[in-house]
């Protein structure tokens, strides 16, 4: 069957996240970006919406069934509010979900409840490495088995809340295969750069370079245990999460440009009455819907365990990163000079939009 209607529970969650995004996030997003500071209260409030908690079964401290689709629906609304805030609220996902999706029962029981049952705390994940030809399947960070431990070496980039993290899921190449390891924040050999990452966008989100020098973790900290886990699954869930956030960012930019075009006059009419502008808006909306449906289908495939889910998630992500660039660029263009100045939000959405091609593994649902 085809259906495009969220469940009642999903719709309630969407509504709750939207209210949060509109009333709590939007009013402070620009100031946080300029100050390069994320409000801890805001993140806690977002965490209390329970998006992740509702995705984890009771056995592991949550109160619902896991669904990538629900995650995608919520992520769009969070992304609409503000990308940096969304990624901050969703940072514990980077720790919890790879364990939930690929971990052993013991790992789930040991590591998930302490995150889920408490207030928001910095549990995070580290995949990205700082080089032009970064490839998640060929990591330079390595894991080597030595006796009863894995020894990790390498450097990770753009790690959200890397400083002060209680624990991280670190991705490393083990015999050439990307695997994931649970690393406590205070592990010996783990060091975090003094300075925050300086990026083009999402400046409110604190991100750090994380170095691993002969960091030893016990064997049972490899996600999936002796067998390891299927990295592609975690990556696919990251693709759909990022795609949904991109849809949210694009929608924010599109809606703002639409309202602006209906107010702004030129040559005696509203500029929205000019086909040059109206057609841009029509195409923006069309592309947003196209991307949303791709992300939905991929999330549905992941939930249904379809074989082609990985490919579909990759297509959804790749399509969304082009879509969000196209839409946010036009979002600036329609505002003209006002699009370019920081008093207006359009330029921020455009900077944030450009990041999706880079944000490998930085969000997951």
């Amino acid at each position, binding site marked *: 069957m085809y259906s495009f209607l969220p469940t009642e529970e999903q719709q309630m969650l969407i509504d709750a996240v939207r209210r949060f995004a509109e009333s709590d996030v939007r009013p402070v997003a620009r100031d946080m970006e300029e100050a390069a500071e994320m409000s801890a209260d805001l993140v806690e409030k977002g965490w209390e919406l329970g998006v992740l908690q509702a995705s984890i079964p009771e056995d592991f401290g949550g109160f619902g069934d896991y669904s990538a689709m629900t995650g995608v629906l919520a992520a769009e609304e969070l992304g609409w509010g503000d990308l940096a805030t969304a990624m901050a609220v969703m940072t514990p996902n980077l720790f919890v979900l790879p364990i939930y999706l690929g971990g052993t029962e013991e790992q789930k029981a040991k590591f998930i409840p302490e995150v889920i049952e408490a207030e928001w705390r910095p549990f995070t994940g580290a995949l990205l490495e700082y080089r032009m030809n970064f490839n998640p399947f060929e990591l330079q960070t390595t894991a080597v088995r030595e006796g009863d431990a894995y020894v990790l070496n390498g450097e990770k980039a753009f790690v959200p809340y890397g400083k002060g993290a209680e624990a991280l899921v670190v991705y490393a190449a083990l015999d050439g295969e990307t695997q994931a390891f649970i690393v406590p924040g205070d592990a010996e050999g783990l060091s975090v750069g003094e300075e925050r990452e300086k990026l083009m966008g999402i400046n409110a989100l604190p991100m750090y370079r994380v170095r691993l020098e002969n960091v030893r973790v016990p064997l049972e900290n490899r996600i999936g245990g002796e067998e390891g886990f299927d990295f592609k699954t975690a990556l696919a869930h990251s693709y759909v999460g990022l795609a949904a956030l991109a849809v949210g960012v694009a929608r924010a930019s599109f809606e703002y440009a639409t309202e602006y075009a209906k107010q702004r006059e030129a040559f005696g009419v509203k500029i929205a009455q000019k086909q040059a502008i109206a057609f841009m808006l029509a195409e923006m909306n069309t592309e947003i819907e196209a991307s949303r449906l791709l992300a939905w289908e991929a999330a549905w495939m992941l939930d249904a365990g379809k074989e082609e889910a990985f490919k579909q998630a990759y297509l959804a992500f*790749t399509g969304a990163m*082009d879509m969000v660039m196209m839409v946010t660029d036009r979002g600036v263009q329609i505002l003209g000079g006002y699009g370019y100045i920081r008093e207006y939000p359009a330029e921020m959405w455009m900077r944030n939009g450009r990041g999706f091609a880079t944000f490998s593994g930085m969000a997951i649902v």
Partner: protein
Amino acid sequence: MAIEFEAPKPIVQQQYVIKTVAENMMRPVSRYYDEHEHEIPWDYIEFMHTAMKASGAGSLAPKEDKKKEADPNKPKRPPIGYQMLAHMLEMLAWGDVGMYLITPGGGLGAAAVEAAGTPEQKKKFLARFAGEKPTFAAMCMTEPQAGSDTSAIRARAVLDEETNEWVINGEKIFVTAGDKSLTEYEQTGRGFIVVWATIDPEAGKAGMRAFVVEAGTPGVKITKLEHKLGIRVSDTAAISLQDVRVPFENILGSPTVERSTKGFKGAMSTFNATRPLVAATGIGVARAALEFLKEKAAEQGVEIRYGLPRNQLTNLEREIIDMEIMLRSAWLMVIKAVWAADNRQPNALVASMSKVKAGDVVTKITQRVVELLGPLGYSREFLAEKWFRDAKITDIYEGTGQINRLVVARQILGYGRKELS
């Protein structure tokens, strides 16, 4: 309810059958009829007629779901008529979109009757498609001076109160399957055309109505068969109507002109059903082209590395991945639009968006495929160049890409014709 993307079982089964038809009845003759414009593929037409009759589907137009005795123990199945049709058309177009356009069963003409006709009209005009011989119907909207701007239609219908007949005069062009609907071939049953004409030129769109004109009605004449860039096997006729008389009850919709444009809008809502279907046919053509490219690339040992960051892909991989994204997302928009149509949900926005998107992507994809295949793309020994020519019509008929952008923009902005034209 929950969001789902599983094609219903009856559709999957149907797809299997249609694919066999596409592979065996269409592809082998696709090139021949492209190069012999105006020849008629009777084998295909008769086969399809027999097959559809056997399956109980006399017409490609979706039926109202028959009211069966409700079994309270069985969960009610939601209707899937338009979804089924979209899948079927996509697959037929994958075989050959021109041949799909001359599939007997009434096409857009029957769709108009289905959408705007009374129960009596449906009974009277649609029964023929399940008859002995393959039968055609066509829609006559466009005039030489009135394309996208349908309010510029000059064809005129006047009621002769003495005989209670409508008298229609006008010139219609670009009528798909117009020849097969009007010419009484020995192989075909009696068809009809649905003619758009005004009953009150002062009233603009509010005066516009559609009339069923049966084949053989005096005064109806085919004046020309067009030669086209693509979809050559599908006849495109110019038709003149001179003092054509049809019975009063052949009018679709209200015979009086109200102040509002409700009547017109009601008839135009046909487009909300047909636009995604046209989009589906374009997608079928583009899928054929993309599959052919992937096949040829695979022969060259090219493997598409899904999952690799895009800055490390080869250009060919990148192109193919981009095209897959375009094609899949356009298809999902079609599915959403027909799903909404099946479930009686408002779908004007997504229906037009699906057409905007499909018009764009199928022309882009087929153009790129020809380029990427090098000499194999441009050569008439393969079908890629034909698909490129065939696909282009998707962005033109059933509302050009630009008209659909207008429709989309008006809905987004809450504007009417007055604010945005």
